């Protein structure tokens, strides 16, 4: 219950500390004392950091911004699970009432070759942007578009597209995957646009170019473990990967007829 002052907890944290991309990194143990169950996980880290600064130790670096589960900035492995124990919940929306007094919590950054660690829990996810830049769009310039109601879109298609478009690009899917595959992330964008009539003209080119970029970034292949779906804070369905694979195979079968040039639509 919010603000009703549940019992305060004492926790032991094992946190990955790494000075920069070149540093080897190691676990360091901290005590987190008098933690309220109403705190979010990141607020708990704020409290630990204030204590560290007071003792002259540099605070734990972690990415975060909106703290309401939509910007996709935060992300960390909490006891080996991307974003922690609560289903469909980002680390910033995880609250300490999900833990017990005396718990020991291990906190690590996303681990993937395509997400190099920059410092402590902060990783570089620029590879996701490059996958989108390879084809995750409809090639329309600003201006000259037809009236919004000129193109009816079946409600089911729109709803399904929205299910896929809900992806926040946090990278939990990659972190959870034994192969560090970005298939769920890529499939969500391929499906969002591929389900809509606006996305049809570039559907095959998009699938091919985005998959090619995903491979080039060093992400692994999908072998259908399903770990990604299990940790996805937006519950993006594994079905979208099947859909992307269909588009990709279709594009491959079309061979050279699908131009490789992306974007100049």
């Amino acid at each position, binding site marked *: 219950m*919010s603000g009703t002052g549940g019992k305060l907890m004492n926790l032991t944290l094992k946190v990955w500390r790494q000075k920069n991309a070149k540093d080897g990194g190691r676990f360091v143990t901290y005590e987190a004392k008098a933690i309220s169950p109403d705190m979010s996980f990141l607020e708990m880290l704020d409290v630990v950091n*204030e204590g560290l600064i007071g003792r002259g130790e540099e*605070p734990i670096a972690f990415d975060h911004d*909106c703290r*309401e589960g*939509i910007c996709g900035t935060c992300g960390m492995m909490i006891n080996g699970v991307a974003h922690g124990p609560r289903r469909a919940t980002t680390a910033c929306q995880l609250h300490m009432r999900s833990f017990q007094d005396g718990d020991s919590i291990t906190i690590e950054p996303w681990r993937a070759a395509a997400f190099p660690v920059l410092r402590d829990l902060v990783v570089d996810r620029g590879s996701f*942007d490059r996958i989108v830049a390879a084809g995750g769009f409809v090639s329309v310039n600003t*201006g000259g578009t037809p009236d919004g109601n000129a193109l*009816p879109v079946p409600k089911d298609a729109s709803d399904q597209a929205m299910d896929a478009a*809900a992806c926040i690009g946090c990278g939990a899917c990659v972190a959870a995957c034994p192969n560090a595959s970005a298939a769920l992330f890529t499939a969500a964008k391929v499906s969002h646009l591929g389900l809509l009539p606006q996305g049809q003209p570039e559907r095959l080119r998009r699938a091919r170019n985005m998959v090619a970029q995903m491979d080039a970034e060093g992400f692994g292949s999908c072998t259908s473990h399903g770990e990604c779906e299990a940790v996805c804070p937006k519950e993006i369905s594994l079905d979208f990967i099947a859909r992307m694979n269909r588009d990709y195979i279709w594009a491959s079968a079309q061979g050279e007829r699908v131009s490789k040039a992306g974007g100049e639509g």
Partner: protein
Amino acid sequence: MELRSNIPDGPIEKKWDKHRADIKLVNPANKRKYKVIVVGSGLAGASAAASLAELGYQVSCFCYQDSPRRAHSIAAQGGINAAKNYQNDGDSVFRLFYDTVKGGDFRAREGNVYRLAQLSVNIIDQCVAQGVPFAREYGGLLANRSFGGAQVSRTFYARGQTGQQLLLGAYQALERQIGLGKVKMHPRHEMLELVVAHGKARGIVTRNMVTGKIESHAADAVILATGGYGNVFYLSTNAKGCNTTAIWRAYKKGAAFANPCYTQIHPTCIPVSGDHQSKLTLMSESLRNDGRIWVPKKKGDARPPHQIPEDERDYYLERKYPAYGNLCPRDIASRAAKQVCDEGRGVGPGGLGVYLDFADAIKRLGETVIREKYGNLIDMYERITGENPYKVPMRIYPAIHYTMGGLWVDYNLMTTIPGLHCLGEANFSDHGANRLGASALMQGLADGYFVIPYTVGHYIASTSLEKVDTSHEAFREAEAEVSGRMKTLLGIKGKRTVDSFHRELGKIMWEYCGMARNQTGLQLALNKIPSLREEFWKNVNILGENESLNQSLEKAGRVADFLELGELTCLDALERNESCGGHFREEYQTPDGEAKRDDDKYAYVAAWEYAGPDKRPILNKEPLQFENIHLAQRSYK
């Protein structure tokens, strides 16, 4: 300082068309010779950067986040207004214009707002073409819902994630240009200084947030689309990183800062749960379509909500504002909540909350329909509070949400520094003293997609631009300033953390410059803030060094600027001896507690001009003229 709004002559419906016909163009082959810097990658920044690159300009775009997709526009939930009149319920461009000016309590410029209403229809078309998955009816056409401050249904939405979907549309357009090599993107770069040479904005100095490197970037025009300054209150619905630094640096280089005291307090946020609170979370205003707001009639009634019988509940918005009921504008709903809590009728811990109850809507429509409409919002509430709104009413309380003030801009969205433009929440232009729901997304995208591509071209074509590159001494000076500031901050080695200063500033601002303000309180704040600022520069403790990823150092620079902006905000609030929109001065209210404007004395934009360190800034006034709308007391009764 001369404030020339450059509003075109002629009837209001023709102003923008006439302006577009009159302004100068840059030849398509010449556009690639010009560089434009865009700071910020939210709705305004991403749409501007993408659109300008499509036209052929060389664009560099900067954001402090790790990806342009994360800008805080993403958190907007409810929707975007457009005067499409798809519902056949009497909407029109004029009505949206009228509602926006009235909603802003008659403190916005008519010309800008009319253009915004006109462009609203193009935005929907653009976003649909990009593949934004707006909500649809079974027939395949676009769905609409109602929002506060309007009696028509003109709000387009994508579940409770409209901002996310619109931003992803703009982000995808931006990434397309990045992929084509037309935009150079600089994520994790923070603008720390504006560079002015020969009296024109010619570039910026940034800090690479991974390596600490201080870098110069030159351009022919600079666009700031860096969002609002709500975090001056520490607790707000803004993202943790939202800051005023870019526009504050511009202010200190000569850009006027307009109406800083117009800050919006959103009525439906999750109440504070303790001292650890790091931010506040908004529950979309769209919930007020089906949720009913109430408190117990009796003071200090501690019974759980379901034990309070119907006739002992006060649905105070429906009672006080029967015409608009729960859908009255944000400033009015927020003040009404404060009033009932001040009367001792608030609910939850500390009595700082009111109920937002879905019981009637669930009875009428069924839980499934409510879940479909608001499921993700209700889930979010449950995650944060541990309470289930399908069973117990939500508790909500107002929180700082949006800032209507910002850099002063003319009709071309140019600040008082030639070449420096400002878009979206960062400028002051369209919302007057209060913004209506679903209008922020509209403004950000109108500015970025449909205004700036024309007006930047006009600036470039009509200005003689001296040859300036990063070897110019203005860049050296700005770099030295930035490096010096970093060094000073790191050298203080005091006893208090950055956050502790930020929290203290936030408390002062909320207490004396929040939902209700008065002369005594504002004067007190104007004494407290400078001494807090002085302590900050003597006693802040920032560990580590500049040459690495250092989040304390990033925060320190932002808080240092908030400590200056907070003072200007209080000064502006003190100078404005009237109540209007989000600015409520207790001395100026009607007998029934509504805001009382003083149009004879205060129908102007307050544009503050920096006068130097420790000098009182200069107040410049741009009179507001109302030729198409009759000034009236705003009534939602």
